[in-house]
């Protein structure tokens, strides 16, 4: 299958600190790619770099073969490339409802905002209950749900999801993975960053392992051996 | 011979407008003096902006003295003149002004301090006019600043002594809506006349509120920058029939050669009608220049003789007779009152200075 999203020898970081060192990966259309790796490996940074929130020092990012390295975040979003960040990236002083409506901001999504909102409320009844609450006062897990729901309002074609299960109760974690599977079934291209390797591998078509800003393993999902993966984590521990 | 005069005035800040007016009068006096003494003497004036700040007024005076001026003319606002003239006194430098009328200034008894106008003179004019109108009840609307409240209280005292009922209404400089205040005047005081003591923007505010509320009065009287050509032009439909202090009628009449000369020069230099501040700035500077020349002839200019020479002044000027008492005040000072009549300012008080009939009773609305 032709790669939909292609990251080539990417270097990026924050100001003087470089985090990603020549990271290359390809993401095939319609597949679910899982990126795992220890804390601080640069997974979030990679997603942010793809979205244009972190400046790229060298290398390239291509979507459908065209470079998006110099595209502004807001234009990338219009192409259907969407990132669902962790729960802290909500709009804290707007209501839950306004947060969700902001998800529908890209012009193509505005038409369907009502239906999409209903879908989100069905997925997360807690958000429907709290639709008028100021988002900054939500509990950690509620905020996480809001971030996911808001991302779904953007009607993504390619969806980068950063640790969706963070801080969620076990029941909700189940729910989240059910949603991911549902999205996958709809044919979405998904890039999933997860700490919960166990669960993530079950939905993975392809797996990357990142460590200290580099890709150290790239394998088909069904070929991955969990024990070997964890052993590689340990290798990092010892090296550090 | 070249003479350098110093002038410290607010050219920016709250008092920028009035400072500008006075500096224009000073410039006219210098211009006329240069013409009068052409070939013999030249005069120059250095003006420093005190930015409406007492500390900068002091600094300005010190700087002017350091630059070797022979005397100081200017200053506006009693609060700035106080410290500034104190600095001048310390250096033995003559400070001549018309910008501060409070008794405190002359109360200090400085040898070097002179001014040609004072609160009493303004009060005399207001009371004289109101007395001639034979009003029984007056509401005084005044700004809570020093010069204004001093004058208002003097007017109150004098009117009360004459058996007139006086209502006092103090307001703050931040007031921009005068309707509640005037409504009180209208419904509670029900005066025959309203006397205003404030500055231009206050007057416009009061008159506009009055125009809206239409209290049943016979006259509206004010002081300072009110009966001026400037106000007649800027606010034609607000000023009609309003009385205010004014030394010259507008347009100036041919019976007054010096006045004609003054207003011509003014028009030439600044392309507008002289306003009342210009008149004072002109008069004080003219007197100062004459005294400087006298002192220099007597050879006492650089020996502190200027103050003595000024004290000998006895002159008929645009603002009437000027002499100085030992405190530097001008006891003769009494203002005249004018009235806005169809875009002109007609002198209506005192009777001997009047050049027209006053409209009375007459309201601005």
């Amino acid at each position, binding site marked *: 299958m032709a790669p939909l999203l292609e990251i080539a020898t990417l270097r990026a970081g924050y100001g003087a600190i470089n985090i990603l060192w020549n990271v290359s990966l390809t993401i095939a259309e319609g597949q679910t790619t899982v990126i795992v790796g220890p804390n601080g490996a640069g997974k979030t940074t990679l997603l942010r770099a793809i979205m244009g929130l972190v400046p790229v020092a060298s290398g390239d990012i291509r979507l459908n073969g065209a470079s998006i390295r110099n595209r502004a975040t807001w234009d990338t979003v219009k192409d259907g490339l969407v990132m669902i960040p962790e729960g802290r990236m909500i709009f804290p002083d707007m209501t839950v409802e306004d947060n969700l409506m902001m998800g529908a901001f890209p012009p193509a999504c505005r038409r369907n905002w009502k239906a999409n909102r209903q879908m989100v409320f069905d997925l997360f009844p807690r958000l429907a209950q709290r639709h008028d609450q100021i988002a900054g006062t939500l509990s950690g897990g509620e905020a996480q749900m809001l971030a996911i729901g808001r991302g779904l309002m953007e009607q993504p074609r390619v969806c980068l999801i950063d640790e969706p299960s963070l801080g969620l109760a076990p029941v909700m974690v189940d729910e989240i993975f059910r949603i991911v599977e549902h999205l996958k079934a709809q044919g979405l291209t998904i890039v999933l960053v997860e700490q919960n390797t166990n669960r993530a591998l079950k939905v993975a078509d392809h797996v990357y392992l990142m460590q200290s800003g580099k890709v150290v393993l790239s394998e088909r999902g069904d070929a991955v051996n969990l024990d070997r993966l964890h052993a590689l984590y340990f290798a990092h521990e010892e090296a550090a | 011979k070249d003479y350098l005069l110093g002038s410290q005035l607010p*050219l920016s800040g709250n008092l920028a407008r009035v400072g500008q007016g006075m500096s224009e009068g000073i410039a006219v006096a210098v211009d006329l003096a240069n013409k009068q003494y052409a070939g013999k003497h030249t005069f120059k004036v250095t003006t420093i902006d005190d930015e409406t700040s007492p500390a900068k007024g002091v600094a300005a005076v010190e700087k002017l003295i350091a630059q070797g001026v022979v005397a100081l003319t200017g200053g506006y606002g*009693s609060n700035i003149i106080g410290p500034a003239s*104190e600095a001048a006194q310390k250096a033995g430098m003559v400070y001549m002004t018309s910008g501060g009328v409070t008794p405190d200034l002359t109360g200090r008894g400085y040898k070097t301090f002179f001014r040609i106008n004072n609160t009493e003179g303004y009060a005399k004019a207001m009371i004289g006019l109101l007395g001639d109108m034979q009003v029984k009840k007056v509401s005084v609307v005044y700004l809570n600043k020093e010069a204004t409240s*001093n004058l208002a209280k003097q007017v109150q005292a004098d009117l009360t002594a004459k058996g007139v009922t006086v209502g006092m209404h103090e307001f703050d400089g931040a007031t921009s809506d005068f309707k509640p205040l005037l409504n009180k005047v209208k419904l509670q005081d029900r005066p025959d006349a309203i006397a205003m003591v404030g500055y231009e923007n206050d007057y416009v505010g009061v008159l506009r509120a009055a125009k809206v509320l239409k209290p049943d009065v016979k006259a509206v009287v004010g002081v300072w920058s009110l009966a001026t050509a400037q106000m007649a032009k800027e606010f034609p439909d607000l000023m009609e029939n309003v009385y205010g202090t004014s030394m010259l009628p507008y347009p100036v009449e041919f019976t007054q050669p010096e006045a004609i000369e003054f207003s011509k020069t003014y028009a030439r230099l600044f392309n507008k009608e002289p306003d009342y501040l210009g008149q004072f700035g002109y008069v004080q500077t003219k007197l100062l220049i004459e005294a400087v020349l006298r002192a220099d002839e007597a050879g006492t200019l650089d020996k502190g003789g200027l103050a003595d020479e000024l004290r000998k002044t006895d002159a008929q000027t645009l603002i009437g007779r000027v002499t100085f008492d030992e405190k530097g005040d001008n006891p003769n000072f009494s203002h005249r009152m004018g009235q806005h009549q169809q875009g002109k300012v007609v002198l209506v008080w005192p009777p001997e200075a009047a050049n027209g009939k006053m409209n009375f009773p007459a309201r601005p609305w």
Partner: protein
Amino acid sequence: MKRFLVPAALAVAYVAVPLAFGGNPYVMGLIVAALTIGGIAVAWALLGNLGGMVSFGHAAFFGVGSYTSAVLSMKLGVPPLAGLLLGGLGAAIASIATMPALRLKGPYFALAILAYAHIFQILATEMTGVTGGAGGLLSIPRFPTLLGVDLGSKTGGYVIILTIVVLSAAAYAAIRRSAWGLALKAMHDTEIATRVIGVPSTHLKAAMLALSAFITGVVGAFNAHFINFLEPDYAFSGAWTVLPIAAAIFGGYRTVWGPVIGALTIYLLDQLVFKELMPHGHQFVLGMLLVGMILLSPGGLAPILGRRLEGGQRHAHA
């Protein structure tokens, strides 16, 4: 290098400046005025940088300090030098009245203090018996001659205000280095995080407010005896708030000396240079200067100077 910088600067300030400019009352007067602003700027920056509270009403403390000292010396014959401390004390006491505002944050706090400044000004205008009302106080006693030095002169005033500023900056620096300073610095972003580790943040902030008010009050008292004149509009003028803020930020409000350097730079440039060049619109140039500074060096002047001196290593927040 850095070790000798402060003593050298002090030597220059105490000896060289009076020698060089003592004969020119105009320049000396401007330097004193600049230091007056600088003193308030230090007090303001102390509150802003350590307490995390931006005040838009330091004129309140300046005015209370100046009236306290002026009235005490005129009515009760308190000597002006003692009046300085009493002025500071008066302002510190006045700051207690403002302490309910400590519950407020950011602009809410800033404007609450501004409201106090307005209120104090109106009270000073209305309390005619004590303050002389709108007419103000003329001929406030000047500083005495001590040990043959005429403290009432321009140079004497210079020495006094310089000492006030130096002591204030030293106090500021000392607090900043202490655990108090760390806690205060940490408090701006996450007050709650400091409270749950035992920091009584409100008390600390109250102490900083009182100290800042005290310094400002002393400076106000100094100014009253130096200018020998007071009136409400002047003593509580917004200029006593605005200029120090501009000076502090211009100089670098996160540093100890930045506010003083900023005050000297802005005031002296404005009065000595811009006013010469453009007698009528010199504030226009001042505005340009402020705008330019923020765009070119957002950290203020002091960091630039610091970088020059040390080869550019230190953190802006240090």
